């Protein structure tokens, strides 16, 4: 039933025909053509019945495709029934035997591959957990994060004021739910064991509903509980519940004391619940924020919403922007220039981690490729030795495809075994990564081996098998089916093709190694520069800790100030302490609070249009304790605040003086805080201090004002102690001092400034460390690859070199010959690699600091380094060649 061209053509185009043809190899050869004919005919007939090419019905196409799927069970059935020679099992047995016969060879390959696959899978597991897996909330693709956008100060994502949040919630139509929360409020838990300072997530009543999270026991919040004056309730986090309450479900309905106030426990969250951007130990509704909820100026809330079904994020954006504009008109003083930024919650959580993680994945994949190239080279030399055996099989009737399949089966077997080992390595690797990774890495706890990662490993194993196995297999078979059973099979043609393939592999190895090295070099320079960045203070021998006063126990500002005064005095008296200071928000540790100042001559502008500055309240000794230099004027002294008749003072930083008070001498100037009552006196600037790196070491410092902490009498201060030597022992002494003054207080967040600095660059360190490790592995692999190729090349050319030596060539001539060729290849590879690196490192620019992606020094050093490595790797084989005994060389059968 040979079909004629027209009908064959009709068959070819039916939907599903391609799929069926792809399955044909499964069917035993003797039945294949008939089987194909039957399926294609049925599909063609059905296709013509629904209109064929002219039919555009997607349903019809889909129906046919669905029907074509049945060809798979059919083919498999036929294979099982008639595939008499059970080829796969035979191939596997054969592969196992030949691998076991060469244990060293097999071990090297499996080990290399297992390491590469393991490393790649480990990185992928991180990528998978952080970037790919859907967030652990209900229908997470409908969740969005909403920020206020300050178009005047140009801040894209600003936290939201309570008043704005409530207005949005009331007036927008795009959200099923709009919730808000303050991620890290602090309060001291007393009663029972020692007082403990807790992180609290302060949420609107509907936050849990919005995320679709249910309590494990008890309930979450009711609508009425977010109104000031409502009964005080908390929901415990799982960890706190286990740790402090023994996991006892009897805790429901009991009362706990936070900052001196009683709260009823109404629920406990499940173990895996996490509020985005928060490490809260427990949760309570909004009223605990007290005065911070009033007024439109203080911005503090994070807002998350669930879109109504069918509403796109675009529509919601437009909707909220309209509301924001209305608010601008109604409250120009506070809302001018404030718009809305919205992004999917997934983007919010994963967005910043994406670039570095993908760079890491690309880097480890490059190492994998280099490993595969090495293995391919090894396979090449291996198949050369099996030439005779393959030739016999070919003579016995095995076709080309059959031989290639057999060889590939070996590769797949190796790869699957290596993949299994690699998976085990990846398990530990992933845990190691999770331990080393910066804490801010989102979804750190989700990193692990799951179905997605398993599928990846399997697919990767098979892919690498093809990568390193296919080319050598094709090469081997091509040779064999060309000249069957020739005696002196070592003709020039054979080695020519193989040599070209080897050289190509080596060139690619070196090029990839160059790319990785350039990346590593840039990152290292970057990291060194970042680490060397002057933070603006002297971090040696300084310990910091937070002390918080419960408002209920210390309601009067005067008492709080008195407490901290006394504390400072007592701490100053501790042995080895040279200075004590205090501040509300520690640089590089706490996020800054901001406010706006009214510059002289610009009183007419609305508050929202005034320049934004960082605001910190400090003690008199702060600048001295931190080692922050005084640039002009003086710092705040006790006299300034003791005498209430004097105007209140402020100190500003250099950036503020430079940027906002250009051309004027700031000392003596008077400034108002925007939004303050008109009766409050303006602040007088008494001094200018050096800039301090604020949010991160990378960012340029922002304008900053420092007020005395006596202005606001805060409840929590970071206390800093400078010591003459290692400050760590001071922590215990400080705790005792605090406990002696009031046993119900907790000292928390203890750290040293050196640690703060180290933690400020955790992400950069992480990425740099990993990529440098990859680059080192890459160099070693590439060096091994070069050595291997050179050694084999020399072996192949033994006769030729022997002849040269016999004809009077000197040692150095041979050296020059061999090294010269090796270096030529290496130079080509390095040049290629540098070009690719130049393009590839563009993707890394956001990770670099103070170094351009086209830094010539780095490129040049890497190029030279690799040439040197190649030279060394070539040297040993070259030496061996030069010292050959010419007579035996000529006679060798090689």
């Amino acid at each position, binding site marked *: *039933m040979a*079909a*004629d061209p*027209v*009908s*064959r053509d*009709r*068959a070819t185009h039916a939907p599903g025909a391609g799929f069926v043809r792809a399955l044909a190899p499964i069917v035993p050869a003797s039945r294949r053509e*008939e089987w194909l*004919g*039957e399926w*294609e*005919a*049925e599909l*063609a*007939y*059905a296709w*013509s019945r629904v209109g064929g090419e002219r039919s555009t019905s997607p349903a019809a196409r889909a129906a046919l495709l669905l*029907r*074509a*799927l*049945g*060809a*798979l*069970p*059919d083919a498999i*059935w*036929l294979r099982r*029934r008639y595939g008499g020679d059970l080829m796969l099992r035979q191939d596997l047995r054969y592969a196992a035997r030949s691998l076991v016969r060469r244990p060293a060879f097999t071990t090297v390959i499996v080990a290399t591959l297992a390491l590469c696959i393991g490393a790649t899978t480990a990185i992928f597991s991180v990528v998978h957990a952080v970037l790919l897996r859907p967030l652990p909330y209900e229908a997470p693709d409908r969740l969005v994060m909403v920020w206020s956008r300050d178009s005047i100060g140009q801040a894209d994502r600003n936290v939201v004021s309570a008043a704005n949040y409530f207005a949005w919630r009331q007036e927008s139509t795009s959200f099923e739910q709009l919730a808000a929360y303050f991620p890290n409020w602090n309060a001291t838990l007393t009663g029972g064991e020692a007082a403990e300072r807790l992180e609290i997530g302060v949420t609107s009543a509907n936050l849990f509903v919005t995320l679709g999270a249910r309590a494990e026991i008890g309930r979450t919040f009711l609508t009425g509980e977010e109104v000031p004056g409502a009964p005080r309730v908390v929901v415990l986090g799982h960890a706190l519940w286990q740790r402090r309450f023994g996991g006892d479900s009897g805790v429901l309905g009991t009362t706990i004391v936070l900052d001196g106030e009683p709260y009823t426990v109404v629920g406990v969250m499940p173990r895996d619940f996490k509020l985005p951007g928060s490490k809260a130990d427990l949760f309570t509704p909004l009223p605990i924020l007290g005065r911070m909820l009033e007024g439109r100026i203080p911005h503090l809330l994070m807002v998350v919403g669930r879109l109504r079904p069918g509403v796109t994020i675009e529509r919601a954006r437009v909707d909220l922007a309209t509301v924001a504009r209305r608010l601008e008109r109604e409250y120009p003083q506070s809302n001018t220039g404030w718009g809305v930024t919205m992004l999917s919650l997934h983007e919010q959580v994963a967005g910043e981690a994406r670039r570095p993680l993908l760079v890491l994945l690309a880097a480890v994949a490059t190492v994998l490729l280099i490993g595969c190239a090495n293995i391919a080279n090894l396979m090449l030399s291996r198949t050369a030795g099996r030439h005779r055996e393959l030739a016999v099989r070919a003579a016995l009737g095995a076709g080309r495809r059959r031989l290639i399949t057999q060889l590939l089966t070996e590769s797949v077997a190796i790869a699957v075994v290596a993949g299994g080992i690699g998976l085990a390595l990846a398990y530990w690797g992933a845990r190691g990564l999770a331990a080393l990774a910066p804490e801010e890495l989102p979804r750190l706890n989700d990193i692990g081996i799951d179905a997605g990662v398993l599928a990846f490993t399997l697919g990767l194993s098979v892919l690498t098998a093809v990568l390193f196995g296919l080319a050598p297999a094709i090469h081997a078979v091509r040779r064999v089916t060309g000249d069957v059973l020739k005696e002196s099979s070592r003709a020039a043609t054979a080695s020519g093709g193989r040599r070209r393939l080897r050289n190509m592999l080596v060139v690619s190895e070196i090029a990839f190694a160059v790319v990785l090295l350039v990346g590593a070099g840039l990152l290292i320079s970057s990291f060194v520069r970042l680490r060397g960045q002057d933070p603006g203070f002297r971090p040696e021998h300084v310990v910091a800790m937070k002390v918080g006063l419960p408002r209920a126990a210390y309601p009067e500002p005067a008492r709080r100030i008195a407490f901290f005064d006394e504390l400072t005095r007592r701490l100053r008296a501790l042995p080895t302490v040279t200075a004590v200071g205090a501040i509300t928000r520690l640089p590089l540790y706490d996020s800054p609070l901001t406010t706006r100042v009214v510059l002289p001559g610009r009183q007419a502008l609305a508050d929202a249009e005034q320049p934004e500055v960082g605001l910190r309240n400090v003690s008199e000794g702060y600048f001295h304790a931190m080692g922050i230099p005084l640039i002009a004027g003086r710092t705040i002294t006790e006299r300034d605040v003791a005498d209430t008749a004097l105007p209140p003072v402020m100190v500003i930083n250099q950036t503020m003086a430079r940027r906002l008070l250009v051309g004027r001498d700031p000392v003596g100037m008077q400034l108002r805080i925007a939004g303050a009552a008109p009766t409050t006196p303006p602040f007088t600037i008494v001094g200018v201090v050096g800039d301090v790196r604020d949010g991160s070491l990378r960012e340029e410092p922002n304008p900053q004002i420092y007020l005395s902490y006596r202005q606001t009498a805060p409840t929590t201060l970071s206390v800093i102690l400078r010591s003459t030597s290692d400050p760590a022992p001071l922590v215990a002494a400080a705790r005792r001092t605090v406990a002696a003054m009031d046993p119900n207080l907790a000292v928390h967040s203890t750290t040293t400034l050196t640690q703060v600095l180290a933690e400020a660059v955790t992400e950069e360190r992480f990425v740099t460390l990993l990529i440098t490790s990859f680059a080192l592995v890459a160099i070693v692999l590439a060096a091994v690859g070069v050595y291997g190729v050179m050694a084999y090349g020399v072996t192949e050319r033994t006769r030729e070199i022997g002849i040269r030596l016999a004809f009077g060539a000197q040692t150095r001539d041979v050296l020059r010959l061999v090294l010269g060729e090796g270096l030529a290849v290496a130079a080509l590879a390095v040049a290629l690699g540098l070009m690719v690196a130049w393009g590839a490192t563009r993707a890394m620019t956001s990770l670099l600091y103070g170094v351009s992606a086209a830094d010539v020094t780095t490129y040049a050093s890497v190029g030279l380094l690799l040439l040197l490595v190649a030279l060394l790797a070539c040297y040993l084989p070259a030496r061996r060649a030069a010292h050959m005994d010419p007579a035996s060389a000529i006679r060798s059968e090689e």
Partner: protein
Amino acid sequence: MPGDSRITHPTAMVLLAVSRGHRYGFDIIDATGLRSGTVYPILRRLEDAGLLRSRWEPVRSAREAQRPPRRYYQITGAGAEALHEALARYPGIAKLLASSRPAPRPAPA
């Protein structure tokens, strides 16, 4: 499978469909309502056991319709016997198949 009582419900349906004149693979699928991945292995088994035989439709008629020739199945004597047993065992299948459209007439040999 004469004497073999392993005939399953889907197998019985396929046998019945072929006996009713649904000769081509896809027609059998339409008539029985079973999936293609179920029907085709059944056809293979039945042919293997000698209860069905297959033929290719004449090339001429296929060429006229400008499509490749289709394979069709016919029930054998042994198959008819097995079908008789099957109907006794699964009396409902006759009704199941009755709801399908009548088989198209095969092209003249």
